[in-house]
Each structure stands twice: as C-alpha cells, then as structure tokens.
C-alpha cells in the first residue's frame, strides 16, 4: 500500500539532492537550508513517533532546525542559478516537440484526476493501493511521477536532468517554498497558546449583542480579520464561531446555523485572498511567476475579495434570520 510517507520520502530525496548540488557549488547557506528541510521529510515520521512516546530530544532538534531555517532564510540571497538553455534553444525545441509538451504537462492534472476517481476500484480485498486517509495527496504525488516519466520520454532527457531543472526552480523559490509550512506551524502555536480564545473574548466584550446587524458584522468581520491573522479560514472558523457566531447569532437571535456556517466560512475565504499569511496562495505564486513584488497577487485580488465580502455580509443579514 502506498502511503503519504512514501511521497514524503521522495520529496526528502529531491531536497537532499538539491542540498548536495548547492554544496558542490559552494552555496553553503542554501545547501544547509535544503539539508535541514530534507531531514524533516526523511525522518519526520520517526521524530513524531518518538515525541509521542515521550522521547523529546529529536523533536527539539527539529525545533532548533526550524529556527535555523528562519535565520538562513533571512540571510542575503545568493543569486538564483541562471536559466538553463537559451531562448533560441527553447524555441527550437518547442517547434520540434510541439503539442507533445502539453501532453506531458497535462499529465499531472489528468493522472491526478484518474487516480482520485479510480481510487475506489484500486484495491484487492482489504488491501488498498493507496492509504485511504490521504488518497488525494498520494494521487498527486504518483501523478507527478507518471508525468515525469512521460516528460523524460518525450524530451529524451537524461534522468538526472529533471532533478537538476527541478532544483533550479526550487532555488528560485527558495524561502517562499517553506512559508506555508512555517505559517501552519504558527497556527498550531497560536491555537495551543490560546491566541484565538483571547481574540474572541476581546471581540465579544465590545459588540452590542442585542443588535442583529452588529452581531452579523462582528461575526463576518471577525472571520475575515482572524483569517488574515492566521492565513487560514479553517483555523478561524471554530474560534470565531464559538466566540461570536454560536452564542450571539444562533443562540441569542435564533439565526439558522447552516447558513451562518456556510456564509461564515466563505466570508473567511475573502480574508484568505487578502493576507500574506496565506503564503501558498498569495506569496508562493508571486515568486513562482517572478512578479515584481511578493504582494502583487494580493493586489490583483483584493477588489474581488472586498466586494464579495460585502455581498456575503448582506446575504448573511438577509438570510440567517428568516
């Protein structure tokens, strides 16, 4: 059975290879950065198992590693490795390979699609091809492997070239690639240290609870605000709904909980469009597309987010009390 762990090990090997290439080119900070990260992928499962069993030291070392990643990320960036191949070479190869390049590129979405939809038939008795808990993520991982095979076959590239090209993109992304993971870690720390509870207590103490409109606004804007802080509407939902939505809207004013829940979550998503904390949606693509400023994606989407947020608040006020 294929587990998510196998996919993580593949990532770990890719990261270790990138670390090694950087080491050979004497780009030491970058090399150390990928090496620490490779450890999280290669040994992560074991570290967390040991921590759960009471052996804290490996997890503490990983904690030190996370701090080291932060420091390494803030060092002045060495220049990204040069583009491989000239524009003329790429044009020539595009004329030669033509549409078959699309076949390989579309293989990631297509193979993911087939593997996700086909998962229910891919088992022999009780033995599943994929671990059922994570089958969508495993499908994506396997689809990448299939697409890599197809791409190598079409381009007739040597096997190691794909890793070299992948590492070039990885170095271009550098710290941005890590941001989603450290932000999610921060989310966990905020939850454990009670930051969310503090926010909902403070907000609950300032809203006039007998006014319906004030409650709708407090709940909706609370979702947006807290999502902006956490970078994740899923983290904001339980905190703000427990602090404001449930006691004031549902219990006090008899609002319909299904609508409160659905519109509350979607209002939170408007916050996701606004915040650099949602790095995988807002910062990583800005770096990936080589935009001038890391906040340019947010600049492109804030009007959509604010108009939609206003519509959502109006819908909520109009629908929940019916």
């Amino acid at each position, binding site marked *: 059975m294929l587990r998510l762990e196998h996919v993580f090990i593949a990532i770990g090997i890719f990261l270790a290879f990138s670390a090694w290439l950087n080491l050979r080119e004497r780009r030491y900070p970058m090399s150390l950065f990928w090496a620490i990260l490779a450890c999280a992928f290669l040994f992560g499962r074991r570290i967390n198992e040991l921590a759960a069993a009471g052996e804290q030291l490996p997890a503490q070392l990983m904690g030190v590693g996370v701090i080291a990643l932060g420091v390494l990320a803030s060092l002045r960036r060495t220049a990204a490795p040069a583009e491989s191949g000239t524009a003329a070479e790429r044009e020539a190869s595009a004329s030669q390979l033509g549409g078959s390049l699309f076949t390989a*590129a579309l293989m990631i979405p297509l193979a993911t699609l087939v593997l996700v939809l086909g998962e229910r038939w891919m088992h022999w008795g009780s033995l599943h091809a994929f671990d059922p808990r994570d089958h969508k993520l495993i499908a994506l991982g396997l689809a990448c492997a299939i697409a890599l095979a197809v791409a190598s076959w079409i381009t007739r590239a040597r096997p190691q070239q794909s890793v070299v090209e992948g590492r070039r993109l990885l170095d271009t992304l550098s710290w941005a690639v890590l941001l989603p993971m450290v932000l999610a870690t921060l989310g966990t720390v905020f939850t454990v240290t009670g930051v969310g509870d503090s926010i909902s207590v403070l907000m609950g103490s300032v809203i006039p609870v007998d006014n319906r409109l004030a409650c709708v606004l407090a709940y909706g804007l609370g979702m947006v605000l807290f999502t902006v802080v956490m970078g994740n509407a899923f983290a904001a939902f339980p905190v703000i709904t427990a602090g404001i939505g449930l006691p004031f809207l549902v219990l006090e004013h008899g609002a319909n909980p299904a609508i409160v829940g659905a519109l509350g979550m979607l209002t939170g998503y408007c916050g996701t469009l606004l915040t650099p904390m949602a790095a995988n949606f807002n910062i990583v693509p800005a770096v990936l597309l080589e935009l001038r400023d890391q906040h340019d994606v947010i600049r492109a989407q804030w009007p959509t987010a604010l108009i939609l947020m206003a519509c959502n608040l109006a819908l909520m006020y109009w629908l929940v009390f019916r």
Partner: protein
Amino acid sequence: MNHWPLIGVAVVVLGFVLRLNPVLVVVTAGLSSGIAAGKSFADLLTLLGTAFISNRGLFLFVLTLPVIGLLERYGLREQARRFIERIRGLNLAMLLISYLGIRQVLSMLGLLHVAGHAQTVRPLVAPMSEAAASKMRDQELSADERNQVRAMASATDNVGLFFGEDVFIAFGAVLLIHGFFREDGIELDPTRIALWALPTAILAFIIHSIRILLLQARLKAAAEKSNAPS
C-alpha cells in the same frame, strides 16, 4: 485570562509592515507567543518541531517542480504562447473566465489538486494569458502590464479554488462546519450547508469575471492610446 500570547500577532503584523523576511518573522512570532504563554523553551522547541513535521502535506507541490522544470527547459512556455497565437478570436477575458469556471467546477467536484499555481498557472495559464493579451491588441505587453496579467492569472486560480470548494459535501469545509455544530448539539444536514454556499460561488464568478473584463478593457485602452497618431 492571559492575553499576552497576542504579542505573536503583533510581531507578525510588524514584521510584514517592515518587510522583514517572512519566514524569520513567523518563527519569531511563534517563539514570542509561546514564551508569553509561559511555556518552557524545551517544550516550545518540541512544539515547533512536531507541528512543523505534521504540516508537511503543504509542501507537496514541490514534487511538480522537476516535471515543470524539465518541460520548461524544452520550451513548454514558448509552446503555450504559440498555441494561443494560433487560435483566432481568442482574447484574455475568454481565456481567464473559462479557466475560472473550470477551476470552480473542478473544485466543486473535490478535484482541488488537479490545477494550481505550480501545476497549471506557471507553465500554462500565465504564458497563455500573456499571449492572448498581446494578440488581442496587436501590441506587446509592457513589463508592468505583463506583471498585472500574470498576477491576475494567479488571482483567478485562487478565486476559482476557494469559491467552488464549499459547494460539495464531501469536503473539508462542509465537514468542518458540520462537525463544529454537532459538538454543540446542533445536528445539520451537510447538503444544506453546501447549498447555502452556492449563492456566494455564483457571485464570486460574476464579480471576478467583471474584473477580468475590466483589466482587458484597460489593456486595450492603453494600446489604443499609444497607437493613436499624436
């Protein structure tokens, strides 16, 4: 109640305003909240380490990089541009609005990982959008305009993903809402939660489509202005 852990939020806001490196800001924020909550440094390190490892799933898109990198080396982006130039009558708005619609429908079906910034936007949608934009007005994009078009391609992917997801029952968001209210003794029908997400999904499509059309109109106007004999 100890409100001091909120200091982490202040660190984040300050760090982003001062434009310090985000990774360093976030790690510092975590440490400050933890210390303010009275955790020992050893416990805090354990928390950082285990939480970091538990969130490895967010790193999965990295696996697409070798494929995309290889195909780019062999001219994928150049080919995407040529493909668009060959389709007659296609403009930027048609391309991006179709992508928005497809992305919303895919995410309604739960196919969240089928498309994305690394999988589809960088190799295909962004170069195609640039090509469509310069083709419709017979003029190359300026560096600034290219930046806007690319950013809009990414924004379109985000809007399509977020506002399709909630409409289907089997997914995270609906199950989270359902689970939350169940813990408080309120039993909801998941299909009704999903149904109430539909108006917002439609509004998101309309609002963002209008914004794409406005961007297209702006780009056209800029070209006409510079082409006009002075």
